[in-house]
C-alpha cells in the first residue's frame, strides 16, 4: 500500500518537499535547543509549560476527535461514515505523532526519555498518559491499516479488526481524560483544579477534531476528487455543533462557579485571562467570539448545509477551540503563580520554529496516509458515495 504514497503529481511532491524543508529548518532549531537548553524558549520559573505542552494538549483532542467517525460507524452502523472512518483513524495517527514529538521537545533531558519506563511510576499521570497515547497510536495503525488493506483487496475487513476498532472508542475518551488528569489533579493550581476539565477537553476535542476533518475532506475533494459524501459531512457538522455547544456550556458552568463563589485562588486566573493586562486577553476574547459565532452559524441549517461555507465555519470553530485550549489553558493555569505573582509568557521565535517543524511532521504523516487512502479509493472506484 505504501507505493501509493510515492506516486504523485509534481504539486504533491512540491508539498512534500516544502514540509521536509520546514522539518529540516526546525531540526536545526531543535539542535540548538538540545545544545543550549530550554533557555531558548519563553518559558520561565513561573510558567514552566508553554507552547509545546499546550499544542500537545490540543492535539490529543484532535486525535480523540477521530472517534466521532469511528463510534457512529462501529456502534450504530452509520453507513455514511463507513467510507471515511479511515480518515479519522489516520488523522489520529498523525496527531499522536505530533503529541509525542511535542512531549520530547518539551523535555529538559530528552536522552533520559526511557526513565519513564525504567522507573515506571503509576502514581504519576504522565506514566498513564504515555500508555494511553501509545496504545491509541497502536490501535489506530492496526485498525486503519487493516481496513484499508481489506478495501484494496476487495474483501470485508477481518472480524478481529472490528474488536480493536471497538476498543479504540473508549480508548479515545481515555486519552483525553488522562491528559486532563495531568492538570486537574494538582492541588495548588486553582485554574485547573476542576472536575469539568476532562469533560470540557472531550467536548472541545469532539468539536475541533471533526471540524478539522471537514476541512481536510474539502481539501481532498478539491485536490484529488475524492468525495467524502454530503451526508457524512452534514452529520459531522451537527456533531461539531453539539460538541461546541457542550464545550461552551461547560465553560459557562466553570465561569459561574468561579465568579459566584468569588474564590480568588480560582477566580484570579480568569480575571488575568479575560480582564488582565497580559498579552493573552485579546486571544481569549477572540476565542469566545469565534466559538459563539461557530455555534450560531452551525445551528442555522441554511449555513450549516451550505457545503462551500461549511469548511470556513469549521475553520472558525477550529481556531476558536485552539485559542482556548492550545494557547490560553496551559499558560492561564500558571499565572498568577503560587505566590500570586504575575509573570508573562510568550513563545520565542525558535520555540515557534520547532513547533512548526512538528506540525510539518504531522502533516507529512497525514499526507502520506491520506495519499494511500485516496489511491486505494481510486483503484476500487470508490471516489464518490454510492
Amino acid at each position: 500500500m505504501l507505493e501509493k504514497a510515492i506516486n504523485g503529481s509534481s504539486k504533491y511532491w512540491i508539498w512534500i518537499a516544502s514540509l521536509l524543508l520546514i522539518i529540516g529548518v526546525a531540526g536545526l532549531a531543535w539542535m540548538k535547543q538540545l545544545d543550549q537548553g530550554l533557555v531558548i524558549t519563553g518559558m520561565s520559573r513561573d510558567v514552566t509549560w508553554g507552547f509545546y505542552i499546550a499544542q500537545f494538549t490540543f492535539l490529543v483532542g484532535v486525535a480523540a476527535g477521530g472517534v466521532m467517525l469511528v463510534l457512529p460507524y462501529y456502534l450504530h452502523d452509520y453507513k455514511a461514515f463507513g467510507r471515511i472512518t479511515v480518515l479519522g483513524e489516520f488523522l489520529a495517527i498523525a496527531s499522536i505523532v505530533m503529541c509525542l514529538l511535542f512531549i520530547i521537545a518539551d523535555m529538559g533531558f530528552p536522552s533520559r526519555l526511557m526513565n519513564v519506563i525504567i522507573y515506571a511510576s503509576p502514581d504519576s499521570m504522565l506514566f498513564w498518559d504515555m500508555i494511553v497515547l501509545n496504545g491509541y497510536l497502536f490501535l489506530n495503525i492496526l485498525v486503519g491499516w487493516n481496513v484499508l488493506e481489506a478495501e484494496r483487496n476487495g474483501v470485508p475487513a477481518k472480524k478481529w479488526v472490528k474488536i480493536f476498532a471497538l476498543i479504540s472508542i473508549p480508548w479515545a475518551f481515555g486519552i483525553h481524560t488522562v491528559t486532563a488528569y495531568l492538570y486537574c489533579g494538582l492541588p495548588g493550581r486553582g485554574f485547573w483544579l476542576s472536575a469539568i476539565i476532562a469533560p470540557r477537553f472531550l467536548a472541545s476535542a469532539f468539536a475541533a477534531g471533526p471540524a478539522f476533518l471537514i476541512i481536510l475532506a474539502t481539501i481532498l475533494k478539491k485536490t484529488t476528487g475524492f468525495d467524502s459524501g454530503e451526508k457524512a459531512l452534514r452529520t459531522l457538522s451537527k456533531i461539531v455543533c453539539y460538541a461546541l455547544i457542550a464545550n461552551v456550556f461547560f465553560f459557562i458552568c466553570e465561569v459561574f462557579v468561579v465568579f459566584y463563589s468569588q474564590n480568588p485562588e480560582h477566580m484570579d486566573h480568569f480575571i488575568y485571562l479575560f480582564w488582565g493586562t497580559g498579552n493573552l486577553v485579546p486571544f481569549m476574547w477572540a476565542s469566545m467570539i469565534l466559538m459563539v459565532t461557530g455555534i450560531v452559524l452551525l445551528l442555522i441549517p441554511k449555513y450549516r448545509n451550505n457545503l462551500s461555507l461549511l469548511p470556513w465555519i469549521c475553520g472558525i470553530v477550529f481556531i476558536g477551540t485552539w485559542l482556548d485550549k492550545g494557547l490560553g489553558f496551559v499558560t492561564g493555569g500558571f499565572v498568577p503563580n503560587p505566590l500570586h505573582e504575575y509573570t508573562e509568557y510568550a513563545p520565542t521565535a525558535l520555540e515557534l520554529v520547532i513547533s512548526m517543524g512538528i506540525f510539518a511532521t504531522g502533516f507529512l504523516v497525514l499526507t502520506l496516509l491520506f495519499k494511500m487512502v485516496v489511491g486505494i479509493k481510486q483503484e476500487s472506484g470508490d471516489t464518490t458515495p454510492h
Partner: protein
Amino acid sequence: MKESRRKFLKIAGVSAIGIGTGSVLTAFASSGSKEEKAAQAAGARFKHRAESLKAGHWGMVIDTRKIDADLAAKIQETCHSIHNVPGIEGKQELKWIWPSDYKHVFPMQTNPYVSEQLKKAPILALCNHCENPPCVRVCPTKATFQREDGIIMMDFHRCIGCRFCMAGCPYGARSFNFRDPKPFIKEMDPMYPHRMIGVVEKCNFCDERLARGQMPACVEVSKGAILFGDLDDPDSNVRKALRANTTIRRKPSLGTSPSVYYIV
C-alpha cells in the same frame, strides 16, 4: 537495605556476564573468582555515618520576627553558595530559599490590616518538605521522592526535566535549569555537586550537612531565628517552639501538610 543488596547482586551478576562476553579469554581464566567476589561484595553493607543526624520527621520553625532584610539575604547567599545555585537573573532564575513578603508567601491568609511589622518583614520561602507532597505524586520517574525522615529529595541522576513537579508544587519552591548553570556559579563549592542543563532542583534541607552531623546552613547562620529538629520527638527544639508559639503553615487547605512552620 535488603533490597539494595539484592539489587547489587543482580547488577554485579549482570555486569560480570557483560564483562565476560566482552573479553572471553580473561573471563575464562578468572571467571570463578570474579563471580565469587561479586557475590561476596554484594554482602557488603551500607551504613549511615556515625555522626549523621537522624529524625523521625525533620521539621523547621522560622521565627519571622527575628529575621531582617540583611539576615534574610545572608541566609539566601549562604545556601546558594554551598549548593552551587547559579546566580541567573530574570524569569529563568534559580533559587532554593529566598526572601519574599507575607502577602506572597501566605497569599490567602493575609488581610488589609496586617501589622506594619509583618507587612515589611522579609518572609523566607523554601521547599516545605510536605508530608503529603504533590511533587512526588506527579513525578514520572521517582526522581523526586520522600525519604523516611520526611525530606523531599531530588535525584538529579534520574530527572528527565518534564517539570511536572513544578506544576505540582503549590509553593513555587522548585527551579529548573533552563541553561548550563556552570558559568553563573561564582565560586564552585567542591563538597556539593552542581547541576546540568535540563534538571529541576530545590532545597534539600541540607541533607548532605545532616549526614555530616551539621545543621542546615540556613539554621546555622540564622542566629536562632530558624529552628530545625525532629517533629516526631515531643522534646525536640521544634516541638517546644511549636508548643510555646502560635505558628502557621503555607496553604493548609491543600492538604499537603508542610514541615515548615512560621511564627509570625
